[in-house]
């Protein structure tokens, strides 16, 4: 299955790119996607979204989903 992963703000800068297109054979969770990409634990202050809705790190993703990781929001 194919998953798009997006990064925003300071996280985009530290990772050095705004998105990845990943292909997985097995069902995978949000936190495991992070670990595969970054080879580290997912920091607790990072927020995660799937298809533009906030999710917990253990949420499983489906084919075609858009996953996003970003720092705490600072609008307004």
């Amino acid at each position, binding site marked *: 299955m194919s998953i798009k992963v997006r990064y925003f*703000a300071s996280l985009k800068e530290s990772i050095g790119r705004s998105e990845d297109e990943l292909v997985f054979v097995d069902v995978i969770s949000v936190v495991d996607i992070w670990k595969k990409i970054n080879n580290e634990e997912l920091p607790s202050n990072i927020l995660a*979204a799937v298809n533009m*809705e906030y999710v917990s790190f253990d949420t499983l993703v489906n084919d075609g989903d858009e996953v996003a990781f970003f*720092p705490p*929001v*600072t*609008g*307004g």
Partner: protein
Amino acid sequence: MGMKLLSSHQSLGANVEVKILTEPFDPWQEIQQFQLSSSAMQGKYGATSIFVGTMRDFNEGDEVTGMTLEHYPGMTEKQLGKIITEAMQKWQVLDVLVVHRVGDIFPDDPIVLVAVWSSHRGDAFDVSRFIMEALKSKAPFWKKEILQSEAVRWVDKNTDGYKK
């Protein structure tokens, strides 16, 4: 005015508009335009609550000369729509207008406008505050500040507006 509208409105039953703008805007003009175009609420509203957030020239003890606001297109509109829907389920509200800037912003520029029309002041005040606080913690916007020293830094997090 050369304003670029990234997202037009989302209809949620009542008259609700969410605008994300890449160019400076005049909140008072936005309010007037919206109110004139909303004929359904004529004669029905007794209270209008308006919040305008403006850029300061200082933060965390440093002089700030400008900032860039990034957002997550699509998710921003989705989250703001959810926040407004939740408010409309909790309180009696007629109309809601939310405008938020992205891009390059300078001191004294309006960043955000939340305007709420209701029959009574209690609901108008409460919904304005509810939307603003929820926006601060859930809408995916990020500020990057440019300091007087020309150093650039991301704003860490928003504070809880209810904390004294």
